[in-house]
Each structure stands twice: as C-alpha cells, then as structure tokens.
C-alpha cells in the first residue's frame, strides 16, 4: 500500500482508494507516513509561497492629440503630388462651370452679340465675383497657432501643451519611503470589480465634475507586479501588489487635484518623456499599452 510512487498525488489517490475499500472506516492515517516535502506540494503549510497578492487598479488618463502631426518633407511632397493628381483627374464642379458660362456671356456681350435682357442692369453677380468675395473672407480668417503659450513656457501641468501629441497623466505619490511618479492607482475594495476600483481611484484624485473621462472597455490593458520587501511582507501579510491598468480618454476638463489626497504633484507628459520620470520596469510596462501617435 505505501508503495513508492514517483508522483505524490498518485500515492494519495492509491491510498484513498484503498481506504475506501476498507469496510466503513477511513482509518488510512495509521498505515501511512507522509514525508514533509511531499505534504508541502499540496497542503498550504508554508508561509512565503502562498501569501496573497494585493490587487490594485491603475488608471491611464490620456488626452488625445488635438491637431494633426506636422508632415516631414517626403510627406509634404507626396501630399502635393496627390492633390495634383486628384485635381487633374477630377470633373468640373458646378462653380467652375458657372465661371466658364459667365465668362462666355461677358465676351458675347462685349462683342454685342447678346441682346440686353429685361431687368439686366449690370448688377448681376457673376460666379467670379462670388469667388473673389470668398477669397477675401478667407484672408481675414486667422487660424490658431499650433504652438501654444504652454509650449513656449514648457508648462507640464497644462493640458494645452503639445497639441499634436498624446498626453498621459502622471502623479507623484509616496510609496513606502520613496516618492515616485506613477499613474494614479489604488487598492481594490472587497466586492468591487477592477474597473469600478479604477473609476473610484480616479474620482478620489480629482475634485468632482472637473474632469470628464470615458473608460475604454472592461478588460485591463496591462499589469505590473511589485514584490514588497521582506519586512513589509510580514507587516502587511501580502507578498506584493499587482497593478492592473485601465485606459481612459479625457473628454473635457482638466485634472484638479484634491488637496487632502496623498498626491504631491501631477504632470501631463508625452510618451517620449515617460522614461525620464518613471522607473525602468514600470516605464516599459506602461509604454507597451500607450500607443505612439506616429509610429
């Protein structure tokens, strides 16, 4: 019965089967000796291997680009060529047909071929006149500058910086004994789903109704595992924390931090500037789910 099996679980199976074969009583304990290392495989007796991981939700709030990226020289040339091809192979529009008709009419009238029509007092608007008026109006139009004042001052708290790029919200929080730049994160309460935890974390950071955000999907986009040092492991009773990140799109408003929360500072940074703020492993994880605007 206590045969030497290669796999301990098979041994248990054999033993329990044999135990059931006995009439009634499950007194297989007396016949067996379980060496300690074989028990550890399937009973939770050891401390360090089976401490739970704490779950946290992180939120990646992104402000999407407001304007398109500037073209490089090749793109500019290609764009010009495409427009030219488009123009050459296109059909005349209504306006252009009207311009041609008016021109012919003017020519005929000068040569005296066309009779003066009743009610034709020379005040008729030709299509060319309309075009001139439209062009004048266009000259008066002033487009907003691509580089805003926030760009010139390099104000990293402003949301109007780098309009052609994606901006991500980073907050400075005290973790253990260090203050680090991280994405807003918080522990998950019991009974919450991870996404509800993420929404709660974001609402806790900002003053209510200042920032309108839309969460994208129920599935987290990334995970970061952080193992606590030994003394904290004993103190908290958990092996570490797993942070699940959720993506959110900033619809309107700006981040206004609550004074009572443990956030000392915040910044809106582009993907390239992430490296200089975050620790290496964290930065790699985050970069994997923040898509760059131009590849």
């Amino acid at each position, binding site marked *: 019965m206590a045969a030497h099996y290669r796999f301990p679980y098979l041994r248990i199976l054999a033993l329990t089967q044999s135990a059931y074969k006995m009439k009634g009583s499950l007194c297989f304990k007396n016949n067996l000796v379980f060496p300690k290392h074989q028990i550890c495989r399937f009973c939770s007796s050891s401390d360090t291997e089976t401490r739970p991981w704490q779950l946290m939700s992180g939120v990646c709030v992104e402000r*999407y*680009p407001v304007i398109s990226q500037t073209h490089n020289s090749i793109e500019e040339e290609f764009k010009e060529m495409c427009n030219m091809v488009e123009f050459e192979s296109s059909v005349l529009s209504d306006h252009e047909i009207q311009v041609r008709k008016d021109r012919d009419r003017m020519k005929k009238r000068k040569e005296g071929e066309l009779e003066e029509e009743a009610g034709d007092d020379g005040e008729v608007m030709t299509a060319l006149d*309309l075009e001139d008026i439209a062009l004048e109006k266009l000259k008066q139009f002033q487009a907003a500058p691509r580089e805003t004042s926030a760009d010139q001052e390099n104000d990293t708290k402003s949301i109007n910086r780098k309009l052609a790029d994606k901006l991500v919200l980073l907050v400075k929080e005290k973790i253990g004994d260090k203050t680090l730049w991280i994405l807003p994160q918080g522990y998950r309460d019991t009974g919450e789903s991870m996404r509800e935890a993420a929404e709660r974390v974001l609402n806790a950071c900002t003053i209510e109704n200042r920032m309108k955000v839309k969460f994208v999907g129920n599935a987290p986009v990334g995970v970061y595992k952080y193992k606590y040092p030994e003394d904290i492991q004993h103190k908290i009773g958990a092996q570490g924390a797993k942070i699940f990140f959720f*993506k959110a799109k900033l619809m309107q408003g700006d981040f206004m931090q609550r004074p009572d929360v443990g956030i000392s500072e915040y910044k809106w940074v582009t993907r390239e500037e992430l490296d200089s703020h975050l620790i290496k492993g964290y930065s790699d994880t985050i970069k994997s789910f923040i*898509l760059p605007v131009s590849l």
Partner: protein
Amino acid sequence: MSRRALSTLYSGGRRVLHSSMSWRKIGQFQSARCYADNFDEEVEELRVQQIADQEIPPPADDTVHEVLNIKAFGYDCTLVEHFAQYTHNLSKNMSLSVFDSYALPAKATLVHAIQGTGLKEKDRIKDYTLTTYQRVIQIQDLPSKRASLLLDLLQLNLPEGVSFTITLHTQEHYKERFIRKEIPDSLL
C-alpha cells in the same frame, strides 16, 4: 364550445374579465364590433412596402461584442472613403471579421442666412449646400481585449475633417437604408 371561448369570439379576440359573466350580458356589452387598438397603424403600415427584419447574428460567446457599426462621416468624400478603407484594412489585419461595409446616401444640408431685404445683392450672404458623406463598416465578434486597441488606432489615425461613431447595430440601422416605397391603393 365553452362559454369562455364563445365570449372571446364575441368580444373580437379581447377577453373582458368580469366577475359574473352571463350569456346575455356578453351580448349586451359587445354589440359593436371592436377591433384591436392599433388598427389605424396597421392599415397605414400596409400602404408602405414592408421589409423583412435582418438576421443579425448574436455574439459567439461572452468575451466578444455584438455586431458594431463604425460610421465615418464628413464633408470631404475622398477623406471619408479613404478612412473607411483604412478601417476595413485595419480590421482585416487585426483578424476581426467584417460583417458588411456599405455607404449611406449623402445628406445635403442647405445653409441659408436670414437677412433683411434692404441689403444689396453684393453684400448678401449667399446660400450654400454642404453634403455629408457617410460610410459604415460593420464588425462582428470584436473580442473585448482588442476593442480598446482598435478604438485607439482609429482615433489616432483620424484625418482632419472626418469623424466617426461606433454604435450597436439595430434593425433601425438596417431599415433606414431602404427607400420608402408606397403601395398604390389600387393594389391594397
């Protein structure tokens, strides 16, 4: 025939429940023929050609979305068409199944400024028409893990002058593509 069955027959299909129902009382109440409540609507419906409902396939399992409509629209037809082509190719490359891709008819909007009659012709604001072009790509069984990625890519690669919306596909979306065809009274 049971008394209950007869009472339903006399009341034109609608059973009026009274605590004490007798044969003669039923006859008294239902002297006029009574039709269903929406009789007029049903007659109106017959005048227009009825279109059968589309068979929209349900999602394959819990982890995928239902049929989604990505509608790209804008004032510039080339941009809208190219963006629609881009979404189609992107979905194919992400191995998503494209259910259907179609164009909705262009909508012409007339912009008219209300002005006083005293202005000269040269100073008046002219009317102009703006046409909005629409293209729809339908994606079936989008896994929720890839949904945020697809949305991200579409938003980042939107050209200027084009917008897009993503909605669930409904029967109304299907039926608005058809032109309303009246059946003449002689055929009814």
